[in-house]
């Protein structure tokens, strides 16, 4: 009863949204897809900013929309972060932060102070929006949303309007939200990198429909994921820092299937991290390989094979302990090695991306 | 090229066809008779009279500032005299073409009695009058009211039109119950065209002498002289009196 059940049908000229979803009531759920896939429209339906012709929306046991019910946006206990911060130009930062706070009747799970601290905007309070940088504006926008005390946070590509530098500035704050807020976050994105860093669940959308959804690790490891990720194909593993080698400046992160050596980023042992392993960085060998520059070699078993975007390429899913990795091979090398389900293989991992 | 030049020739022909046309400025109260007279004038002489209407004061301002009028039919006698003195009218062409008659008129058929006693009763809200500073009919009305010692009583009820035409408009739409207007505005062929009225006896005010004059611009236009002369013909006189004007 603590989840979100959403059914929407919406007919626009040239676009149809048709979804029937059960979303988890905690963690970050990424609505993922190309532009035009309907992810933002779905988010707006959840917020009540669009009114679908047919719809039913239940949030933690409360009906927000059905045949006879329509809770207007301003009565829904949501927080919404838009692509651009959309701060009110006539108010300074504090005025913007107070706008929703003054009107909110829901429990203040995140107080104003906490929101200011979380987003690091204490020094900006007296400034007018037009004197802020894009990154600062978006941080204020997020804090303004948090200050309302939402029971669910809806974020519409909050980083899309920012350049790489600003993205790097804000991502850590979003990761803190993920770790520190007890409320569900629905996060619209078309960036696999953002999704890998932030999401616990993923809803993949295409042409106004949901094409796949589930926990992040499992869903990304599915070879039949209807959305082609191309160079971004890969998996995300939950791991813990197990050992730090100060002599070689390396750290070992342990996941359910083994350990991977990576550059030491100064993280303490025991720290929970995420590791993203892209399919293009994984290769397979039938015999235990000779010593090479590749540090990370794990034993696994081929689980399944599937075609990739290019006819010369294959994606191979390999079971490693309790985890799964995806490797990209050429069809020829797969044929030469006799890669088939059940074959024991050595998995060589060239590089991993570590995310706190 | 050929078509263009013939077009230019045609335009020149129109511009120079002025010779038998006369531009006449007419005081507003004389609008209706002037139209009839102009039609007769064209029929009998072949000249064409182009009429412009307005209050005497406004027409004076326009003439002083170079308006192309050639004959002026004013609502008074001092404006044509002033123009003559200023050299904007041809000396010796001034004459009284009509003597105006003032009427207390109401659009309501039963309201105005034969003696104008309604003025004394005060039983009305608005009395429309032409601006007495600029309109002779307004000035005559003030003179009459002063003589009858009624001015102080009725002045608070004045609503002032910029000309006699607007005073009539206020009354004819019923917004003012009473008005002082020119008889010519409500009179045709011996009777009132509508409403009720009291024709103010001529001895109660100075006569409203309406003078005509040939303007400086019309000095060399034979049609201007012809129109001025036509106003004195029996046919023109008949038209003028049919609208309730007197003659000198």
């Amino acid at each position, binding site marked *: 009863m603590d989840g979100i059940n959403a059914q929407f049908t919406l007919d626009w000229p040239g676009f149809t949204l048709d979804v029937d979803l059960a979303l988890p009531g905690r963690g970050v759920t990424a609505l993922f897809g190309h532009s035009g896939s309907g992810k933002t429209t779905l988010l707006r339906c959840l917020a009540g900013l669009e009114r679908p012709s047919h719809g039913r929306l239940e949030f933690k046991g409360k009906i927000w929309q059905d045949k006879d019910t329509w809770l207007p946006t*301003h009565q829904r206990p949501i927080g*919404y972060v838009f692509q651009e911060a959309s701060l009110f130009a006539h108010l300074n930062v504090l005025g913007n932060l107070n706008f929703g706070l003054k009107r909110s*009747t829901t429990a203040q799970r995140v107080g104003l102070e906490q929101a200011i601290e979380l987003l690091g905007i204490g020094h900006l309070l007296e400034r007018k929006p037009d004197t802020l940088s894009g990154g600062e504006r978006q941080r204020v926008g997020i804090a303004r949303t948090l200050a309302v005390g939402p029971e669910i946070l809806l974020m519409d590509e909050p980083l899309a309007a920012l350049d790489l530098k600003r993205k790097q500035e804000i991502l850590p704050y979003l990761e803190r939200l993920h770790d520190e807020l007890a409320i569900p976050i629905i996060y619209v994105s078309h960036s696999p990198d953002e999704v890998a860093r932030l999401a616990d669940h993923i809803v993949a959308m295409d042409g106004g429909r949901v094409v796949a959804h589930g926990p992040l690790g499992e869903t990304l490891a599915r070879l039949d994921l209807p959305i082609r990720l191309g160079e971004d194909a890969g998996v995300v593993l939950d791991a813990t820092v197990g050992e730090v080698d100060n002599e070689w400046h390396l750290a070992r992160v342990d996941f359910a299937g083994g350990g991977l050596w990576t550059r030491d980023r100064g993280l303490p042992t025991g720290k929970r991290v995420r590791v993203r392993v892209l399919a293009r960085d994984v290769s397979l060998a039938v015999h235990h390989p000779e010593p090479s520059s590749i540090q990370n070699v794990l034993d696994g078993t081929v689980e399944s094979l599937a075609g990739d975007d290019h006819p010369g390429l294959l994606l191979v899913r390999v079971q490693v302990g309790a985890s799964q990795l995806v490797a990209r091979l050429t069809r020829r090398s797969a044929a030469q090695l006799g890669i088939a389900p059940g074959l024991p293989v050595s998995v060589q991992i060239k590089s991993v991306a570590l995310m706190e | 090229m050929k078509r263009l030049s013939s077009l230019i020739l045609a335009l020149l022909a129109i511009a120079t066809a002025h010779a038998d046309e006369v531009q006449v400025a007419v005081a507003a109260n004389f609008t209706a008779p002037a139209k009839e007279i102009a039609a007769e004038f064209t029929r009998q002489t072949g000249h064409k009279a182009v009429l412009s209407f307005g209050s005497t004061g406004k027409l004076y301002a326009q003439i002083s500032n170079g308006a192309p009028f050639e004959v002026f039919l004013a609502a008074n006698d001092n404006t044509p005299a002033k123009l003559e003195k200023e050299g904007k009218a041809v000396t010796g062409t001034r004459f009284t073409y009509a003597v105006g008659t003032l009427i207390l008129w109401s659009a309501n058929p039963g309201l105005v009695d034969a003696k104008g006693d309604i003025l004394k009763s005060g039983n009305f809200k608005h009395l429309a009058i032409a601006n007495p500073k600029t309109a002779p009919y307004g000035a005559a009305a003030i003179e009459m009211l002063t003589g009858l010692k009624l001015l102080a009583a009725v002045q608070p009820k004045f*609503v002032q039109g*910029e000309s006699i035409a607007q005073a009539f408009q206020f009354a004819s739409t019923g917004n003012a119950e009473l008005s002082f207007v020119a008889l010519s505005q409500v009179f045709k062929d011996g009777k009132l065209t509508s409403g009720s009225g009291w024709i103010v006896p001529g001895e109660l005010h100075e006569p409203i002498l309406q003078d005509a004059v040939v303007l400086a611009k019309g000095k060399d236009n034979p049609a201007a002289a012809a129109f001025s002369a036509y106003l004195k013909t029996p046919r023109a006189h008949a038209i003028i009196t049919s609208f309730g004007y007197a003659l000198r």
Partner: protein
Amino acid sequence: MLTDTDLQAIWLTIRLAGIATLILLVLGPPIAWLLARSRSWWKGPLGAVVALPLVLPPSVLGFYLLLAMGPNGPVGQLTTALGIGTLPFTFWGLVVASVFYSLPFMVQPLQNAFESIGERPLEVAATLRASPFDTFFSVVLPLARPGFITAGILTFAHTVGEFGVVLMIGGNIPGVTRVASVQIYDHVEEMAYADAHRLAAVMLTFSFLVLLAMYTRRPKPARGD
């Protein structure tokens, strides 16, 4: 320099323009809001009606107002039934006429201001718990402030410049309906050109200063971001 009657006319003009502007500041925003936000079919006809005084000769408006507000007109019969009497030749009659006459000068700048605010600030306000009514006062009005200043100045100045309509329904009563523009007209009619010059110069200076103030005001875009 200016005579007492001139000063009386100026004061009357300022009162008329001020009251008409205040009334339009109440009536204008809802109409402008409807025009800016509605996608209904009647948006076109309503917009056209509001804009009519821009193209109509004042004499047409004045003529119809004179007929409508007169004792035989529908408005006149209503006001008579209400015990107000008829409106022509009264100060409040001029106020009513000015409200019609200056309506587009209030509505159109406001409509532009509302349209330039766009959808986003309204959506943001809704997600921050503001009801539509609340949003109008706490977001739309402050963001449209430059539009309100423009609309107010234009409405006031345009009402000051009103002549044809006043002439048609005013009756030129000193202190009641004889506004400055009519007073100038009278001076000209009376051939008192020196008097006309003095008052006309005051009007010219006023109009120029108003427009100068508008065109040199630091432009501050109403942005939602």
